[in-house]
């Protein structure tokens, strides 16, 4: 199995079992089971006129155990995540059966002896859900690899590399120390770029990388580049996808600072609001029309990786107004569980 070689990292990569604390997963479970319930009614009851009533009865039987099961799985998620996928799937199944058995006396309506049929239906529904998530993780794993590759190629923007090398060559005779520092920074940057960027990284590390990048760019852009960091409420321990922030700043430099005649200020503000981290990168734009496809590609790349890591819980929005371009990322605040 391919996943054996991988370090324990993100749930999506590890095996079939979904992360029951993920909002997207929970919504999908609820939706899927309810669709199955509706399907059952439509199959069983021939007269369409009787469907509404049958659906109500079905909902009465399904919803309580369903919500109980989802709640239990939500609570048990940290423990489940530590089990081997097959055993965890078995545990999920047992939880569902137990919930149905316990809630049976509450929701049956006087007709005894149907428990085994309910258990069978619950087993089928559990199987369908797990099979769906298994399929989904298999389908998205190659996509993740591909996204990573894409990330890698998109990150090393040739424009940046060659301009940077040219900048270093430009100062090497007059200011060898500055040239040395720039090459050290370039080495650090490339080490990060070429690492296997599969796992979430602390925001602090990402910020250090960005500072190195900005210093490198200031070699050639000089006074034209200034970055204002608003990080008073920044959770440096929050986990973020690797190389999420640096490309945003690179975009801001490429589209906002380089084409502008005067100095352009990039504003980076990061703050935590409850369980959410908000990252905002704001740069001036010279010409909206020329703000072309290169930018979109980098953003699509980040958006895709946010989906892979956080599903529906993260979002990326952009907005252009008042001669400035803004990218706003929201993602759930997570820390490394030691």
């Amino acid at each position, binding site marked *: 199995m391919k996943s054996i070689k991988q370090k324990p990292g993100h749930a999506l990569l590890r095996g079939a079992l979904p992360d029951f604390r993920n909002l997207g997963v929970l919504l999908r479970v609820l939706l899927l089971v309810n669709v199955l319930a509706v399907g059952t009614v439509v199959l069983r009851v021939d007269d369409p006129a009787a469907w509404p009533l049958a659906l109500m009865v079905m909902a009465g039987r399904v919803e309580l155990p369903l919500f109980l099961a989802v709640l239990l799985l939500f609570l048990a998620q940290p423990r489940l995540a530590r089990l081997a996928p097959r055993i965890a799937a078995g545990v999920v199944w047992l939880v569902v059966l137990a919930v149905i058995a316990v809630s049976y006396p509450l929701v049956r309506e006087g007709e005894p002896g149907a428990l085994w049929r309910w258990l069978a239906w619950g087993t089928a529904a559990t199987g369908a859900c797990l099979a769906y998530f298994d399929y989904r993780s298999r389908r998205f794993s190659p996509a993740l690899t591909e996204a990573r590759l894409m990330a890698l190629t998109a990150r090393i923007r040739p424009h940046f590399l*060659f*301009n940077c090398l*040219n*900048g270093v*060559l430009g100062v090497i*005779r*007059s200011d060898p120390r500055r040239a040395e520092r720039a090459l050290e920074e370039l080495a650090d940057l490339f080490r990060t770029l070429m690492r296997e960027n599969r796992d979430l990284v602390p925001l602090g590390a990402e910020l250090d990388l960005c500072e190195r990048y900005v210093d490198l760019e200031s070699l050639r852009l000089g006074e034209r580049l200034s970055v204002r960091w608003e990080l008073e409420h920044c959770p440096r321990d929050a986990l973020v996808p690797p190389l999420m922030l640096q490309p945003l700043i690179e975009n801001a430099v490429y589209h906002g600072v380089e*084409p502008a005649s005067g100095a352009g200020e990039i504003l980076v503000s990061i703050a935590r609001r409850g369980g959410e981290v908000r990252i905002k990168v704001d740069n001036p734009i010279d010409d909206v029309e020329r703000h072309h496809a290169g930018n979109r590609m980098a953003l699509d790349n980040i958006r895709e990786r946010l989906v892979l890591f956080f599903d529906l819980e993260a979002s990326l929005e952009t907005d252009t107004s008042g001669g400035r371009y803004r990218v706003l990322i929201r993602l759930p605040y997570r820390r490394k569980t030691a």
Partner: protein
Amino acid sequence: MTQTALRVLIVDDEAPARTRLRDLLGDIAAEHPNRVVGFAANGIEALRLLEQEPADVVLADIRMPVMDGVELARHVGHLPEPPAVIFTTAYDQYAVEAFELAALDYLLKPVRAQRLADALARARARQPTPDAVLAGLAPGTRQHFGVNERGRILLVPVADVLFLRAELKYVTARSAEREFLLDESLVQLEQEFSTRFLRIHRNCLVARAAVIGVERAGEQEGEPHWDILLRGLPERLPVSRRQWPVVKQALGI
């Protein structure tokens, strides 16, 4: 063999890039005599410098703020003795392909001394590139019209021009303040700025953004037609019968 020193102007928006070219020119000066006549950070600065201090060769970065290298090359063509332009770029796949097609000289940054020397040697013999070729490199991106006035190149922002009208040999560009004579053809201008200007008559293009309305005219004279009204101009411009359907559609009337 003694050669006169080649006068070189270095144009790049990044200071280290300018320094690098200056160092390289110094390194090859023994075999290829040259003298740096100035540094500029963008196309407009370069033109101002060239008016004061003529050069034989301009080393121009392609991507610069205010005025990029290709536009600079086009305006340079209006100078009495146009210098040869050698483009420099760190990485620009599309530009490089276009340059290959147009057989223009370009250098990839970081530039190597030998390549720079070769390019300078070629520049001595080089014919100026026709404007149409340069126009084809980056259609619609020119920000200024260049007007030759008493040996100076006056730059008129394209965005300020309200309409362009062909008159005999020249094209007149009208801004809110005054008129300029352009040494270009209306057809070529129409092609280059198809999104900005709209043809309303055989001899006239108007800036789409400046149009504030149309008005019926010429009923008394027995030649009924529509007039275009432009912001900031009392003058009305007649729309020809042939162009009217196109104009109507373009303005969404």
